[in-house]
């Protein structure tokens, strides 16, 4: 019978991992696309009237960043999003907590939320314009309504998803109701609140742009739309990048806050 040597050798997996970590792989694909785009525009493979070269867009962006209008557009867009988030988020979290803690409140609100939640909130814009006029309030409110539903639903999920044992610890020690809410229900809901916040940012950005397309005369969304009407394609692209950067920045801020407020969940993920 033939003898077979089984050799279990050390592998260089860890070394390979290091290589992968050292290369900024995440940066390579966008850079490659930008280079390909630049090349295609210069070579005339794509129509630069619709797809201006990234370098052209960059130059336009630099030029626009010198103007007051550019920054005031960003300012007003951020303001609409910020006010909308606060207006919807604070009551959303409170209603979500109440629904999670009191079955009566939960049963009272559940059908209402189930019925209204699926309506695309932008569909309500004409109604909100009737009620609040064409000024800023209608823009805040359309974002706020969306945020309210997302935050209340996710906060509710956070409270309900908190393991019962934590409430039992408080109950066994005869902690007061208020103390139980503050020390168990609220921190237990934090991961849900952050999930909600993350979804809110994405949808709030969509709503912001939609509202600014249709009923605004300022803001990043309005600027994109306006650039289309006058066929300033470069300016349009600058708007795209600004919106993308706003979304990215907001998501970094949430990441940072999450690390601060729910460190135990961040590590688990």
């Amino acid at each position, binding site marked *: 019978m033939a003898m077979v040597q089984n050799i279990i050798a050390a592998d260089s997996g860890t070394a390979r991992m290091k290589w992968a970590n050292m290369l900024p792989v995440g940066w390579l694909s966008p850079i490659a696309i930008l280079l390909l785009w630049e090349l295609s525009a210069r070579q005339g493979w794509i129509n630069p009237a619709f797809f201006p070269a990234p370098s052209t867009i960059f130059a336009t962006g630099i030029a626009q960043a010198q103007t007051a209008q550019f920054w005031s557009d960003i300012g007003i867009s951020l303001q609409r999003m910020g006010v909308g988030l606060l207006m919807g988020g604070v009551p959303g979290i409170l209603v979500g907590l109440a629904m999670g803690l009191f079955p009566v409140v939960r049963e009272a609100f559940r059908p209402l939320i189930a019925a209204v939640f699926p309506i695309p909130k932008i569909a309500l814009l004409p109604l909100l314009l009737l009620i609040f006029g064409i000024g800023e309030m209608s823009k805040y409110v359309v974002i706020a309504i969306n945020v309210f539903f997302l935050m209340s639903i996710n906060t509710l999920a956070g409270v309900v998803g908190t393991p019962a044992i934590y409430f*039992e*610890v408080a109950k*066994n*020690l*005869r902690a007061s109701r208020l103390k139980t809410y503050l020390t168990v229900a609220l921190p237990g809901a934090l991961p849900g609140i952050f999930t909600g916040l993350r979804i809110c940012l994405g949808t709030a950005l969509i709503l912001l742009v939609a509202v600014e397309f249709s009923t605004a005369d300022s803001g990043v969304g309005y600027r994109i739309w306006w650039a289309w009407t006058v066929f300033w394609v470069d300016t349009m692209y600058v708007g795209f990048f600004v919106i993308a950067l706003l979304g990215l920045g907001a998501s970094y801020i949430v990441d940072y806050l999450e690390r601060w407020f729910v460190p*135990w969940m961040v590590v688990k993920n």
Partner: protein
Amino acid sequence: MRATQNGTGKIAVAGVSKTFGDPVHGFRAIGEIDIDVAEGEFLCIVGPSGCGKSTLLRMFGGLATPTSGEIRITQNDPARPLTAMVFQQESVFPWLTVAENAAYGIKATGNWNGRASQERVDYFLEKTGLYSFRQFRPHQLSGGMKQRLSIARAFATNPEILLMDEPFAALDEQNKLLMQEELAVLWEEFRSTVIFITHSLDEAVLLGDRVAVMSSAPGRIIHTIDVGFPRPRNPIELRRQPEFAEMTKELWTVLGREVLEARRQETEQIARSR
């Protein structure tokens, strides 16, 4: 009812039963239990799975109520919390640091008293070997450390009655041994009343002044033995004593039958549900 009174004896359980769900057709977890627990007694309760021993403990802890009967608990000092429970599952708060978790009981009961309380918390963190981890959060600890933390939390709360529901069940054998020793030492210092639920006959005899055996569901107390070993006890030495073996054997003679009965019930229940 879980009433508190001033009198002799710490806990008086009279005719307590518990039925889950429908009063007639529901699951009868506890048959009828009568037992008295003395002030400062360490009572261990053993019984087959599903015999209602955890339910009984939860009644003492205010987390469940009897279907019939009454539990009277004497409270000597209204300023001290009546009970603190150490749960079988993980129960330390992931959002609090180790130090905050250990302090939680005192703060939740509104008994926080500045420096003195902090010293008490630090003392039990020291005793459970967690002092140098006090700024850590539970997700950074091992399972055994988390369980030690919940024991520190319960002790720091300074309850009149300590309720422990299989606190070492999730630990590995070696850590279990260490924890048994540590618990015995801690308790000998404070001598609060303890109700300790366990699957392990060894553990019950090692730790308890008295061991009560519960029947399979509906649970009743069918046997009790007094464990007369002097304290402080050395677990390793104690296990070598003939009386120790005698006691665990006596307990097993009673308990073994009940475990078989519990198995039979389980089989029947599964057969019925198919």
